[in-house]
């Protein structure tokens, strides 16, 4: 059951000897598949779709954990958080892309110039996601891992998923339990056509990288 560890307000109320009538809440239209969090509905549902396997439960739990860890990380200074990300090996341009700002903005933050609370949270959420991926799935060089294509011949990387606001797919890929093709399809149903290329990059005779037709 997805929870952030807190009880809902209905359970936390101060109680005396006399019972206080709770309001009768209206019936709810219930999705069958979607994981409405306990933040919605205000009434603990008595019926819930249970997951086919433990992985699904973990996946749901991951987002609650991510939120909590983001809150933890957001207590640090933004230059400190950026330095941690730099020490993991991330490129500034990739961090800028993930946060949704320009590289110069990142450079300003590094020098101590202020970032909005929203951007501070975004940086914190990057660090928190790195923590989770490393700790839960044993991925050691996380920056390197984010730059490697999900599949040979298709230039989509975990960085691209992340920048496309599909951290759910990043977590899935990190878990190793979801097929790369399934992830690619979830990200872009047209990926087979979009990333098809008759060309390849190779090292030419002068040592520089060149482009040629495949199969040559």
């Amino acid at each position, binding site marked *: 059951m997805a929870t952030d560890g807190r009880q809902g307000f209905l359970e936390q109320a101060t109680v005396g000897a006399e019972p206080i009538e709770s309001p009768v809440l209206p019936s709810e239209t219930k999705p069958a598949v979607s994981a409405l969090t306990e933040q919605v509905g205000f009434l603990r549902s008595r019926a819930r779709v249970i997951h086919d396997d433990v992985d699904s439960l973990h996946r749901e739990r991951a987002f609650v954990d991510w939120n909590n860890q983001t809150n933890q990380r957001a207590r640090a200074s933004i230059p400190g958080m950026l330095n941690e990300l730099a020490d*993991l090996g991330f490129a500034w341009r990739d961090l800028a892309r993930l946060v949704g700002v320009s590289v110069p903005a990142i450079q300003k933050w590094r020098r101590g110039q202020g970032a909005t609370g929203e951007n501070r949270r975004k940086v914190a959420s990057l660090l928190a996601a790195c923590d989770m991926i490393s700790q839960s799935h044993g991925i050691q060089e996380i920056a390197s891992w984010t730059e490697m294509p999900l599949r040979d011949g298709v230039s989509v990387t975990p960085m691209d998923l992340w920048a496309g606001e599909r951290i759910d797919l990043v977590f899935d890929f990190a878990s190793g339990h979801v097929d790369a093709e399934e992830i690619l399809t979830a990200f872009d149903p047209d990926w087979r056509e979009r990333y098809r290329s008759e060309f390849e990059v190779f090292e030419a005779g002068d040592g520089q990288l060149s482009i040629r037709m495949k199969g040559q």
Partner: protein
Amino acid sequence: MPHDLEYPSGAAGSRWDGLYRARGAEVVCHRPIVTGDVFSKVTVQSIGETKTKTVIVIQHPCAPRADGINLHRRLLVAELRSHSVIPVQDWITGHYAKMPLPDLIPTVTSGKRHQAAFFDEPYLVERGALELDSRIACLSLNGVNLLLRRWVHHNSRVVVPTSTYDGQTSPSYEEADLIEEWCEARMDIEVRQAAAEAVAWLREDGGGGVTRQQMLREPQSRSAVRVQMRSTIRTLRSSDPG
């Protein structure tokens, strides 16, 4: 799809932003000159006359330097002119002789705000004509790939996917990023000296008989080079006197 020219992706509010790494006051002098850099007030030689124009470097990313530090004596550039915003769908179906540069100068509201590079107006310029003080924009990696794709298509009518260009341009772009970062950290010495220091370091063996520069060709090795570089810079700074 891979046979079409592409356009910048992203939400409309940020799509044009994604073309650029830096514009206007964001552009820093210590970044090496690379493909896609835009310079104003550049002296170009036309037929029988000298003119001053705003230009963009269209020399291939692997080609601008003879020795890794010094630019070639002459570089290929294309002229920029004011141009209305070209809708994204039209990037695919037309304007093949141009590279649109919408919101190039976001601080103005006049017609100069949006521009385009005209591939039919190429020039060779002396390297000295590209003064770092007059650089007004640097393209993002995605912007450089789009530029190259359109430039090559203009010349040969061959369409190469942007993702393929990325495999070719990203090592050079990464190198430029690292040199910029090195120079910024080494503001205590002259920029040319810092850049030379960075290039020398990149050409050292990074492990296993492969130079760090060569390691940049492999996406999974780049982060290791970044980590090493940042550590090296910290050591250099802590060992500097004063």
